[in-house]
């Protein structure tokens, strides 16, 4: 599935969930299913500092693709992270660097990407993009 197809699927999923509380129930469920980062990677170096909740992000470079695992101390943030990972993880650095994240806005959670929200999600998306750019630059050099 491409990044865009994955985003479309999430948008379609959320369309079924009318009520806010239903959406959040789903996000919380996703948070609980998030492939957890291995403890050895839950380091200060992998910590993305949001104001209110902490987010750890780890990247592996496998067969030309970037695979992300993450964790957060807040469940809702964790759910949102799992959506971002679902969309971006397992793609090439080039695809990730070029991707436009539209689904968060489309499912009505754009406020979570506001810098004032400080829940770490925006910083995480930025960090994923930075990793992608770094690996892209590296692969061009090689």
């Amino acid at each position, binding site marked *: 599935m491409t990044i865009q197809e994955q985003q479309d699927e999430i948008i379609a999923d959320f369309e079924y969930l009318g009520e806010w509380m239903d959406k959040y129930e789903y996000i919380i469920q996703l948070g609980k299913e998030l492939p957890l980062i291995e403890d050895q990677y839950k380091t200060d170096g992998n910590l993305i500092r949001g104001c209110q909740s902490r987010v750890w992000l780890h990247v592996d470079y496998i067969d030309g693709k970037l695979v992300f695992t993450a964790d957060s101390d807040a469940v*809702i943030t964790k759910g949102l992270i799992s959506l971002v990972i679902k969309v971006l993880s397992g793609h090439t650095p080039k695809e990730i660097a070029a991707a436009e994240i539209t689904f968060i806005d489309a499912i009505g959670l754009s406020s979570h990407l506001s810098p004032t929200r400080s829940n770490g999600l925006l910083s995480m998306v930025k960090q994923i993009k930075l990793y992608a750019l770094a690996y892209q630059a590296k692969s061009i050099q090689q």
Partner: protein
Amino acid sequence: MTETITIGESRRPNGESRKLDIEKIRRDFPILEQTVYGHPLVYLDNAATTQKPTAVLKAMDEYYNTINSNVHRGVHHLSQLATDAYEDGRRKVAEYINAQHTHEVIFTRGTTESINLVAACFGKKFLKAGDSILVSGMEHHSNIVPWQMIAEERGAKLKVIPIDENGELVLDELESLLKGVRMVAFNYVSNALGTINPVKEIVTAAHRQGIPVLLDAAQAVQHMEVDVRDLDVDFLAFSSHKLYGPTGFGILYGKEEWLNKLPPYQGGGEMIKTVTFEKTTYNDLPYKFEAGTPDMAGAVGLGAAIDYVRALGLSNIQHAEHELMVYAMDAMSGIDGLRFIGSPDASRRAGVISFLVGSIHPFDLGELLDKQGIAVRTGHHCAQPVMDRYCIPGTVRASMAVYTNTVDIDRLVAGIRKAVTLLG
């Protein structure tokens, strides 16, 4: 053109309280009549900012519609009216806090600016290498950082009055903590915990050693009587927007002798007497500290807010809010796993309930309350040292105002229960 008006003692209420009609009061705040995510708004973020009654909005509207003009400058009619309105605001503030002179009331942009002003001006003149500033362990960053900045500049350091498990200041070691201290700065009421601090005890101890005191009253002036002469504080800071007044406006009170000793803060218009390229002489109090065109509408709005609060009666407000605090803490105690951060005693608190439920992250709880139309604050409340003290990432804070009713509290309790089920 400093005028000195000595304000009488007659304004003190007699201590008896009248029961307030909260439903009638709520009608003065039209913003409360709205729905958020399909639910009637429950506004419990009053420690961040209170809503404004129509009387305040009207007064500001009228100022702009009828007399707006620059103050203290023009000889023309409107300028005179604007100046009168602006100075009337100052007089109302002076009366509200029982200042001896109106010129002891300086208009600023808020509590933060008031504290920065004192820290910068006092530090420049009185702080030497090796000196200390004493703050408390439950200060808002606004009453830590300005002191840290000037301390760093002058080679001075910060000392801290510790807090105990119940969110109370530990004063056993106060006498020895005061050694080498040049200024004591602390809050009347903690914004993160709601604790009401023993101001007089600290002031007495500080004054015994000749040390001045700055009191951050940002979380106090809307909940209880604050009398600067009775408390004998040397400086006092608060914000208009937490006292039902407009945002971006605040107060610094200082005893005349102290304000006269401090150098000016910012340079510009209004704060001068004469200017030549060789030498500028500064204006008298309060204008020495009010450089530039001030916020005239802000003064008018705060004046109207004070009129509003005084018409309700501070002791009535205090009584009603205490009853609600007891009701809220009692109702919230019934929630499994809920723990209050700070004093378990409602009478030791004003306006603020900080809490956590089990191991639920405050952000998750706040988010799910928001989606039920309930506005609370989550996080460290700009008091990170307090959170470090309790080893927690933050709290959920519900804070009340005079218009908060039992329906708001019932909705909060139901909202927490629903969120807990969802997160469970």
